[in-house]
């Protein structure tokens, strides 16, 4: 199981070709994905064609860049022209977009080879991928456990060697949490750093597309390819994109790291807390200075998130009515058709959030819920602003616990609590990464989270890389027969 940078080095040296690597991944998918369940659609023909084109470029000695020939997977939330894009929902099970998402287009132009579309919680709503209406995805480290979510498919695929890298989305932690659960690197960039055009919206003000990699270098390469202004997304930031791989090896000496009190809570998994504390000491040992910081709005972030995200979701999902595309269940008349379509097409969690969101936006409730939530969101932002006036990065656990068993969190609130450490960065839009920082006694991965200033992904990645270089957690691979 090789990283993207190892693969492209091998292509360059002529030891292997994109086609050989693509074949190897496709046959591994054929052999192992029945167990893992990472993919919803495998696009073998396209992958072969893209790989052959990459072969040719390497043969001529002119690869497109650091991703040329890299076999990757996309969370099935990104629109792919001519390839069905389901959001793991019955309502979009047959939906074939007529266009590519901006990130899909950028990855293709960088030469990446799309192996297929991977599983997720329906419409990215969930933290275990159990809300997929189409498939069960298992954690490659323990098949009885969940891979996390909502980007459980791409995280599991990368961890299991079913793709060399992947793209997910993070709305409340949906990249970082599954990265932590699956023992891979997952980055949520700054809001607006990566275009959302073509990403099927869950909560527009919170959705962040971002990469998964086996290590920090791969993650930085993927980010470099997808980042940058997009005229099709009015919320995308028009700022130059640095070379994220350039400063990766510069270490953390002199960096001030903030350790937030609120991210070490009662009731969190002791093994997680211990591993993260050790990891923070490793960073200190590498020359970083540590400082206690406080992010006092953190306890309110979760509740606030469950007002804003469902509100936006209830609006974004209104278009699925059986009139234009996707599922249509016939009815007596228009309203009957629409009701039946939505009743049959959406799963329980999606319906729960649509109802929640519809309620909080209703006349008479708006100010008490949505209006109030926006104010709290401002407080969460101010917390980070205040902290980043004193420190360069915040270090914390990615999640309060490790991967849980399928069916273990049947209570929605128990599931929501999983995202308590990841939601604040989504609310404020600042970048965050999860890197592997150890394993529990039972062999389940633990994630260390590094959060940085807006648009300062370079420092986040650099610190993550310094930690990674000093440890070997990222080199461990699950055993999959």
């Amino acid at each position: 199981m090789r990283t993207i940078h190892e693969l492209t080095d091998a292509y360059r040296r002529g030891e292997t070709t994109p086609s050989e690597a693509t074949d190897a991944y496709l046959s591994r998918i054929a052999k192992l994905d029945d167990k893992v369940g990472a993919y919803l659609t495998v696009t073998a023909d396209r992958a072969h064609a893209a790989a052959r084109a990459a072969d040719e470029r390497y043969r001529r000695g002119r690869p497109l860049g650091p991703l040329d020939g890299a076999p990757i997977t996309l969370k099935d939330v990104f629109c792919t022209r001519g390839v069905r894009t389901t959001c793991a929902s019955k309502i979009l099970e047959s939906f074939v977009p007529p266009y590519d998402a901006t990130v899909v287009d950028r990855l293709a132009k960088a030469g990446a080879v799309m192996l297929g579309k991977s599983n997720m919680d329906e419409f990215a709503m969930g933290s275990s991928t159990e809300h997929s209406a189409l498939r069960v995805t298992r954690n490659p480290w323990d098949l009885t456990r969940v891979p996390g979510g909502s980007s459980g498919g791409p995280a599991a695929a990368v961890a299991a060697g079913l793709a060399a890298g992947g793209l997910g989305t993070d709305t409340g932690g949906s990249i970082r949490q599954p990265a932590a659960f699956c023992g891979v690197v997952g980055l949520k960039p700054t809001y607006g750093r990566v275009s959302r055009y073509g990403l099927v919206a869950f909560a527009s003000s919170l959705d962040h597309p971002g990469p998964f990699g086996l290590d920090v270098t791969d993650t930085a390469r993927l980010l470099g390819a997808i980042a940058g202004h997009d005229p099709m997304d009015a919320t995308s930031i028009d700022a130059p994109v640095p070379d994220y791989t350039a400063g990766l090896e510069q270490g953390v000496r002199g960096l001030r790291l903030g350790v937030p009190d609120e991210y070490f809570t009662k009731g969190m998994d002791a093994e997680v807390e211990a591993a993260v504390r050790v990891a923070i000491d490793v960073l200190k040992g590498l020359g970083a200075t540590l400082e206690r910081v406080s992010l006092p709005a953190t306890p309110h972030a979760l509740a606030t998130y469950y007002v804003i995200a469902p509100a936006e979701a209830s609006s974004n999902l209104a278009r699925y009515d059986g009139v234009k595309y996707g599922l249509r269940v016939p009815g007596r008349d228009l309203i009957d058709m629409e009701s039946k379509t939505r009743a049959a097409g959406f799963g329980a969690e999606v319906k729960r959030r649509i109802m929640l969101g519809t309620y909080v936006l209703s006349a008479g409730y708006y100010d008490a819920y949505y209006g109030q939530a926006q104010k709290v969101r401002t407080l969460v932002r101010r917390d980070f602003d205040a902290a980043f006036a004193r420190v360069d990065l915040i270090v914390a656990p990615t999640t309060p616990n490790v991967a849980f068993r399928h069916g273990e969190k049947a209570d929605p609130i128990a599931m929501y609590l999983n995202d308590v450490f990841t939601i604040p960065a989504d609310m404020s839009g600042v970048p965050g990464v999860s890197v592997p920082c150890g394993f529990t006694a039972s062999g389940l991965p633990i994630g260390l989270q590094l959060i940085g200033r807006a648009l300062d992904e370079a420092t986040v990645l650099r610190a993550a890389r310094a930690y990674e270089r000093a440890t070997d957690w990222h080199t461990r691979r699950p055993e999959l027969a």
Partner: protein
Amino acid sequence: MTAGKWDVVIGLEVHAQLTTRTKMFCGCPTTFGAPPNTQTCPVCQGMPGTLPVVNRRAIEYGVRTALAFDCRVNHACRFARKHYYYPDMPKNFQISQYEEPLAEEGWLEIDRPDGHARRIGIQRLHLEEDVGKLVHEGTLETAQASLVDFNRAGVPLMETVSKPEIRSPEEAAAYLRAFRAVLVYLGVCDGNMEEGSLRCDANVSLKPAGAARLGTKVEIKNMNSFRNVQRALEFEVKRQTEALDRGERIVQETRLWDADRGYTRSMRSKEFAHDYRYFPEPDLVPLKLDAAWIDEIRRVLPELPRARRQRFVAAYGLPAYDAALLTQSRALAEYYEAAVRDFPQPKLVSNWVMSELLRELPGDDERAIEQATVTPSRLAGLLRLIDDGTISGKIAKTVFETMVRTGEEAAAIVRREGLTQVADAGALAAMVASAIAGNPKAVEDYRKGKTAAAKAFVGQVMKASGGKANPAMVSKLVEAELEKLTKT
């Protein structure tokens, strides 16, 4: 207007399609009448994953209009989502503006039937996207299927809400006419009500004469012409007056105007009113309008209808009626001014434009004026021929009709058809002499003091000349000849 013991209170909401080349939030063309769904893209079809991007030109048009109405332009404004389920709306929400509209607090001056002007306040002006169109197989009641055409979905719409300060259906029609004229002058809307470029809803209520508190309002929709706005409002005022006179309460509701049957009927009552669940559009950042940009738009505002009308009276000495008619459309006013530049007799030009030109053209809008085969300089050419006596006014009308048909210069037609006036005194004298000689009875009448008999001789000569005789000269010659006869 007071309907007996009631005061009428009307507020108008006007939706105007902006004439931008592309849609409000995507690059699709806005052309009217294209085959269904050919002017669409994933964005205006509301496909999953698509995002809106604001059309800056639409903002500019909105600001231009706001400034023309003397509104306060908000330097920061926002778009909001307005939710309701309807299949002509691809996303089941409409991107509109709610709490932070583009502009607020302006006014529009209208002319009342008594000739006095009155200012009607404008509450707000905001931008939004239009919806698509449903096409039913057969009538709505019996259709087995309905089809959706999204060509119109996403076309920029500007909604302008007046204050409830309109006091009669006539004033409402005047408001709408003045409103349309301003928009057309600004070049932001083609003003075509039949094609739906301009749509109007009204809120109507009655209150006891002189009372401060407003009565229960009824919203009237589906009035698709100026005439229908007035008719619908007249009907509604009558309906409410009769109901109140009977001691009934007015129900707050939406009523549809049925132009064929000439009444309004209830569409939905307040109990079924929508909760639109507005919230700020998260896919768009708040709009920041640069003060310098607004100033620049203000600087290049064209002369507005009212100012132009006043100038027409002052500068050209036109009667108010002429000035009002000529300035109703910017294209017509410009046509008139171009013609006057070429032929500086304002009233004569005005007469010709109002009677002949407007009779021949299908309308007074940009399109019609542009298509006019008789250009301003050709009209001036024709009027010069009358002025220098080459042709008579009567012949000129025939020439004008030919010009409309053939697009030729007046002089060419006059030459080809030999329509030049006979102004040769000798030839005319002979014709006059022959006419008088041939009708001794009329001469006798004239002698007895029936001076009208002279006119009959002029008519005869004109007829004999095929209309080409110079009428003034004929008249003079006839009089001179008759003078001679009576003295002898």
